[in-house]
């Protein structure tokens, strides 16, 4: 369908051999630029320790070996005091709890913003919009002390609450806009039938808001899974390091890990994301596009 649409008004694009050649060269160039670093790291990680510094055409190893992956697991466990499986569990706990907390609170708050009245509504909403543009680092120092006073520094809760405070505006923004796009007649009909506001939210709005919630889940998942600075500073206890924090420690530590182990460690963090992306790529792209268009 998409191609038909292009064919209709792409006449001079199709007719021009110059355009045809330029697009092929430029797009191919960018695909190589994007793929090469990832393939190179993959290649490093599967070379045997003896042949790690050489390969055919920079990419194809002379000798395949998974020894680096075993080394990476051992290295993380011995030097970091946190194994890769543990890092993934930590990240999964933090991510799933943060996303659940943020979305469940946003579902209700966005409803108040879209369908209910309360004082200072638009000012509060403007503060939320402004806070979306604020970099996380601005909150870093006071948050650190707030979490110490609350006695939850170095626990999962520290990071989960910090993420919740930082990301709740995004959930509310997206859901409010979506609720407001739902035809007025639908909620009106519900009110006439005597539905309470809670029933209206649960039975009319929420079933229709599934795509918006999916968008939120994707955006928040990426933001929390990949987040680094809060996770590094609020959870300094090695046993609860998340994946990016553990990986950064391996990659930037003073004592050098050998290049094979280093690359295997990086690949261990990339491969699961790659698999999830391969399965859900349409949702990822649609979700991130939709999230951006809401700004």
């Amino acid at each position: 369908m998409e191609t038909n649409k292009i064919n209709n008004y792409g006449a001079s694009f199709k007719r021009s051999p110059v355009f045809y050649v330029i697009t092929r060269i430029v797009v191919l160039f960018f695909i190589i630029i994007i793929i090469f670093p990832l393939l190179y790291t993959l290649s490093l990680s599967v070379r045997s320790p003896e042949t790690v510094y050489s390969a055919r055409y920079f990419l194809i190893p002379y000798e395949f070996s998974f020894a680096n992956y075993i080394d990476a697991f051992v290295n993380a466990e011995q030097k970091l005091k946190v194994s890769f499986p543990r890092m993934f569990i930590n990240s999964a706990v933090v991510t799933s709890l943060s996303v659940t907390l943020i979305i469940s609170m946003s579902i209700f708050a966005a409803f108040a913003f879209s369908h209910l009245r309360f004082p200072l509504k638009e000012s509060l909403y403007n503060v939320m919009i402004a806070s979306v543009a604020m970099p996380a680092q601005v909150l870093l120092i006071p948050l650190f002390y707030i979490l110490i006073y609350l006695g939850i520094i170095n626990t999962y809760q520290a990071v989960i609450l910090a993420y919740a405070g930082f990301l709740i505006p995004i959930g509310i923004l997206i859901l409010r806009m979506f609720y407001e796009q739902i035809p007025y007649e639908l909620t009106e009909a519900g009110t006439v039938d005597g539905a309470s506001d809670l029933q209206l939210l649960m039975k009319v709005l929420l079933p229709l808001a599934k795509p918006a919630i999916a968008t939120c889940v994707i955006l928040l998942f990426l933001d929390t899974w990949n987040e680094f600075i809060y996770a590094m500073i609020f959870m300094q206890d090695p046993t609860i390091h998340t994946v990016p924090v553990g990986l950064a420690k391996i990659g930037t530590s003073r004592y050098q890990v050998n290049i094979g182990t280093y690359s295997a460690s990086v690949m261990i963090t990339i491969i699961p994301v790659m698999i999830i992306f391969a399965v859900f790529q349409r949702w990822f792209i649609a979700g991130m596009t939709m999230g951006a268009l809401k700004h």
Partner: protein
Amino acid sequence: MIYKTFHIKTLFYLLPAVFIFLTFNVIPGLTSLVLSFFDFSGFETNLFRKFVGIDNFIKIYEDKYFWIALKNTFLFVFGAVFIQTGIALVLSIFIFFGNFKFSVLVRSIIFFPCVLAPVSVGLVWKKILEQDGVLNSILGLDYSYLSSVSLVMWLIIMVNTWQWIGYNLVIYYAGLQSMNIELLEASDIDGANWSQKIFSIIIPLLWPTTILNMILNLIGGFRAFDIVYVLTRGGPAHYSEVLASYLYYYSFSAGGPNKMGVGAAVAFVIFACILTIAVARIIISKKIRREN
């Protein structure tokens, strides 16, 4: 509207989210501004004991590395807003009108780095750019790219562009798909060639999308920390420090000065930059609305 006026039940919907938002976002944000007038280190319990006025600001004003960090931040933002958006614009037009057989696959590949952690991306590139890295083997050089004062910031911008170009690309693609095609059809009848179409019709029609991409990259540019941290840690000798990493160095870094008041002053500067931009954006969009 369900209630014509404020109803106490509304609080039930609102309070949990607003409470978390205020406690962990607004209050720390405002506290950060106040803390920039105090002197404290990471080990104190009463942060507000030692009021020092604008000493922290004088300290960063006199620090040459603060100005490097500020300059680097603006350079980084410039790269994200203009270079990255520009490349994404060209790439999206080429993919959209290029009649590629696998255009979905092409977009997915270019988009893929967006879902990776910046930490992973930084570490992938670090090994490529190091002195014994593959870039030198390919080019036949022996150069330490990340220790070059003049080059290092551009390399960080390049790695960041590499990661986020797909994000701008898919946003442009959405813009292209919803573009009004009548003008293009009319120009076909008039016999316009492809370059005339791109420069006179497509790029002007994509202007709102370009503005959106620029704003997103502007906001993202001030956030950059992870990639600087893993690639260079602000080095060589603080020459690739950005405001965020400078704040980290002053407040939290293990070998750093551990002066959190100074860190708060840097946060104040970041806050002021973002606020200026946000206000400018509101004023400009209001002006545009009035003119229309």
